[in-house]
């Protein structure tokens, strides 16, 4: 594809840094959602450090690209990316979920600069993203709206209302990611309420669909570039990911959806992430 190795290395290193932040802040909070934050880390890194047209000094810049974290419980990955990108101090990350902290358990657009929509109740982010995209078309602005969904989240009916609408309104300025890590709280998604075949479903709803390895930085960037060329329809990038990716004892585990690592587990995870073991 021709992405310089130096760029890929830089992004991979940034993703590792973001994973360290996720582990540290959830550990400090004593609660939170590490599994689904870690699975999304590479995509979110790519967006905030390469893809998106943003300016941390002007969070309200009308021409900016937007990112809606529809799977709002992955707030740690969003906060880590925003802090690293300069929207607020990295030093405040360990205040996640503490009383009085702006870093709420689920993203609050009124409290944290850079958060484009308050989310947490699943299934609502794509609708909001559509609204932002419609505003962009009305105003003749060419910003793009990126949105990330979970594969358990797409069990919510509103997601499909929004999917239908995005295609109907030809919102080619909407680029969605499905963090397809295969797991939800009560078990694997295929056992609880299977959304498969996901790619076929989105195609049937009129979306351009790509399927990638969600931990392959080059593939992520290539898919975004390709999505950017799609005209007249919204795009979704179905990313096969590993829940808990980057932390050996969390990977593929249902139980790490919403549990915090204990101090000794934090230590072990940080050691793994320092070593670049993946």
């Amino acid at each position: 594809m021709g992405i310089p190795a130096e760029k890929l290395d830089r992004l991979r290193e940034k993703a590792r840094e973001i994973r360290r932040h996720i582990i540290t802040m959830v550990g400090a909070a004593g609660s939170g959602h590490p599994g689904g934050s870690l699975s999304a880390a590479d995509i979110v890194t790519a967006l905030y450090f390469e893809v998106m047209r943003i300016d941390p000094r002007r969070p309200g810049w009308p021409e900016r690209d937007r990112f809606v974290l529809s799977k709002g419980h992955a707030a740690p990955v969003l906060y880590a990316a925003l802090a690293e990108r300069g929207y607020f101090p990295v030093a405040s990350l360990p205040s996640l979920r503490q009383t009085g902290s702006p870093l709420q358990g689920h993203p609050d657009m009124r409290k944290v600069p850079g958060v484009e929509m308050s989310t947490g109740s699943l299934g609502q982010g794509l609708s909001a993203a559509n609204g932002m995209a419609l505003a962009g078309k009305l105003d003749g602005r060419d910003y793009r709206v990126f949105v990330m969904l979970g594969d358990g989240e797409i069990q919510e009916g509103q997601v499909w209302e929004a999917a239908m609408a995005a295609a109907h309104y030809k919102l080619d300025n909407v680029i969605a990611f499905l963090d397809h890590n295969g797991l939800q709280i009560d078990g694997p998604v295929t056992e609880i309420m299977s959304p498969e075949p996901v790619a076929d479903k989105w195609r049937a709803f009129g979306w351009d669909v790509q399927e990638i390895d969600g931990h392959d930085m080059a593939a992520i960037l290539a898919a975004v570039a390709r999505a950017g060329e799609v005209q007249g329809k919204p795009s979704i990038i179905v990313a096969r990911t590993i829940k808990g990716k980057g932390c050996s004892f969390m990977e593929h585990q249902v139980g790490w959806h919403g549990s915090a690592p204990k101090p000794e587990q934090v230590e072990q995870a940080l050691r793994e992430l320092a070593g670049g073991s993946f």
Partner: protein
Amino acid sequence: MSKKIATREAYGAALVELGRLNPNVVVLDADLAKSTKTADFSKEFPQRFFDVGIAEQNMIGTAAGLAAAGKVPFASSFAVFATGRVYDQIRNSVAYPRLNVKIAATHAGVTVGEDGASHQMVEDIALMRVLPNMTVIVPADAVETRAAVLAAAEMDGPVYIRLGRSGVPVLHDENNFRFEPGRAVTLREGNDVAVIACGIMAAAALEAAEKLAGEGVSVRVLDVHTIKPLDVQAVVEAAKITGAVVTAEEHSIIGGLGGAVAEALAEHHPVPVRRVGVLDTFGESGKPDELLEKYGLTPADITLAVHEVLKRK
């Protein structure tokens, strides 16, 4: 009384007027544009109108996104769908982030008529009132409706406007009427009892007051168009002056205007209160006027309530 205009008709016209004044106003509907009258706006501003089809949750979420991007969205459907069906969407995508979304719901109450209980929403004031950051307006007539729509567009934050299907008497002179959000309107002075009403029951209260005057009962009538924030001062003053209060709404007696007034008076100035409204039941199919009779929403019901509450003074 004067001519009758449905508040939803006034809404449709007001939206067009607003659309001309404010290029950021956009309108959403969910396949009910001909009934909610958002169709009026759609004819003049098709680019700014989004009929999302029978997908109300998506409508609210899309409105939230439009508001986040600087638009002033008015989202409409029947009250039952625009509040109950989308409750979590309003709560989490609109009220919690305090986004500038205006929900204008028509066909509230039993006067929906023949469609029956599934479409007759008598719990919506309660649902919206309990949400933080939500302003709740129940206009009594076409004049208040137009004013409320224009005012809502100027307010910063979520607003719920409750409108009806049938024609209602015009109570105010539009050249003379000043709409102040959060301020009750004294429609009639009186000292023996205060009837505090909203929506279609304001006209019913005036009719009851006329009749009671003939019996020598002096009735003060308050039109409380803003249920939230409630004009507590006006309510308490009315209670202080009269010593007895009747509330009246085309809504359940639980949690609506009656609930709000009872809460305020219990804390500030307890007096005997009687709530006129739907008695914790669902509606049914029928002619609107017959349903108002059957469900206790007539001037005669207000009169009975006044007699009852006067005994407890």
